[in-house]
């Protein structure tokens, strides 16, 4: 277990440095798939902790809060796998190769490494910016992983990573909708709250519409 955590930590650390060795280290172990899965789930859970304002706004109870974090970790891992599959498919079509799908999935999973620090999104005011930095960082990790997979050929790796991401976006807006529906239903069932509402939606009922104040000002009310 200690060795497993150590390998996880080394993988995260090296992946965040965009070091190709990170992917060799992770790939060198027989339980590599579990290491990557653990990193992805941890990243997803940490990111939701950083974005937990939505759970609080929807008044999720403490026990379900923990369940939500784990669920988000699993969903996050799955979404990375979908991205990995899309990248693999793109590479097969544009640059015919013999790279196994499982290897592409494992390396894409390491893209979750920066999100292990997703809890930092919690920081007041600076958190949003940190979230954006982590998103770019994650993309760069996946790009570095794909470059390693393409034997150092940056161009094809960039094309496959970007096109793969676009494929996922198009799919989620079209044929992926039923999957998203099932995901949301599962989410509602486990967390006991409808997560569609934002802070502004829920608290807007207490706030004044700006035109009220503007009208008052025009009337010259003291």
């Amino acid at each position, binding site marked *: 277990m200690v060795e497993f955590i150590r390998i996880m930590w080394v993988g995260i650390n090296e992946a965040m440095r965009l070091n190709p060795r990170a992917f060799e280290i992770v790939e060198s172990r027989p339980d590599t798939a579990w290491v990557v899965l653990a990193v992805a789930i941890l990243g997803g859970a940490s990111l939701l902790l950083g974005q937990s304002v939505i759970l609080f*706004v929807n008044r999720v109870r403490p026990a379900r809060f923990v369940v939500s974090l784990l669920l988000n970790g699993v969903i996050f891992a799955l979404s990375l796998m979908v991205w990995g599959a899309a990248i693999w498919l793109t590479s097969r079509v544009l640059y015919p190769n013999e790279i196994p799908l499982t290897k592409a999935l494992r390396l894409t999973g390491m893209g979750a490494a920066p999100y292990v620090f997703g809890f930092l999104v919690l920081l007041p005011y600076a958190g949003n910016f940190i979230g954006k930095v982590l998103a770019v960082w994650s993309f760069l990790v996946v790009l570095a992983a794909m470059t390693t997979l393409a034997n150092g050929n940056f161009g094809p790796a960039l094309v496959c990573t970007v096109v793969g991401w676009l494929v996922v976006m198009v799919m989620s807006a079209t044929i992926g909708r039923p999957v998203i529906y099932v995901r949301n239903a599962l989410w509602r069932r486990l967390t006991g709250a409808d997560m569609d509402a934002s802070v502004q939606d829920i608290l807007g009922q207490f706030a004044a519409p700006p035109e009220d*104040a503007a009208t008052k000002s025009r009337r010259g*009310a003291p």
Partner: protein
Amino acid sequence: MILSTLSLLLTGLILLIILGALLAPFESLGWWAGWFGEKPALPSRTATPEAGQAPEEHPATSAVVYLSGIGAIDAASIPQEEIDWGLMAIKRLPGVLVVPDVYPYSVTNAGLTADRSFARFYRWIERRRLENPYDLLQFVVNLRNLFQVAVSADRRYGPIYNLGVAAEIIRALEQRGYRVGSGKPVTLAGFSGGAQISLGAATYLAPALKAPIRVISIGGVMADDPGLNVTTKLYHLYGEADPVQKLGHWLYAGRWKWFPQSDWNRAMAAGKIEMIDMGAMAHNGSKNYFGWTAFTPEGKSHAIATIDTIGDLLAKDGLINPAALQAARAANDPEARAYEAARAAEAARARDKQREAKTTW
């Protein structure tokens, strides 16, 4: 060896500060989610006090609520100079209901020494501060409250935090006889971080009180807050020797000129924000806005000058009768002078004592 110990201590301190910042939003978020037992009491646009429950209405024609700076431990435990300033403000602002006891750094108005995990620690800091007003450990209180200001300014957490503070302001107003729905204008006077929280709370106060809301920032560090959209006017009092109040301008992107459509810049363009130069006043130390021993070229102590500027602004907006204001000042001037002289004598004694101690050493 010493260097490595120092670097270890520094790393630990930085990690503690980051941990404090990470935990800062949880108080208001947990309050909203009902994690801490009681369900939040919220302001309502339609609620009016039931017959027989409402206290007798205060005859004042407007109200001023003071929200203290980040040095506050609870509503009553604020730096002594601010307490004295508030007491004098009550006397120099006739016909105004002054509410000085809202603790703006908690959504439940619960001070740091109330029933909290670190209450004993904060009580210890409070005792130290009473013995030495310049005790360095009060920096912990400042930092804790500074994070709450950041929570108020954050568009994710701000709505919850500011709603909680607005509910507490309404409760404090009602306790002093302000009738919700009376339409009497309310002015929020906030010092330092209190100004940001004033702006944030304004979003919810305007519809709940059905009254015009003004904000007077005293050296305030404010963000580009949506509360500006419902605020009738924002007066920003700034000292030329106060670099802290400029932080709001530097740190919050919505205040930069490159974003003309931000709430702040639209309010500026509409003439809603007025900057008032307070002369050589500072943010901290004896020359701050509440100082009794530093004087303006006109011979007023900084504390009195700040109160009088607020009085002038309220009179300009028709919230104070100018004749009554002049009368109140004339009646209060001897007391103010005596108070200033007493503080000056006290400061001189403290300086002598310090000099004596140095000589002995």
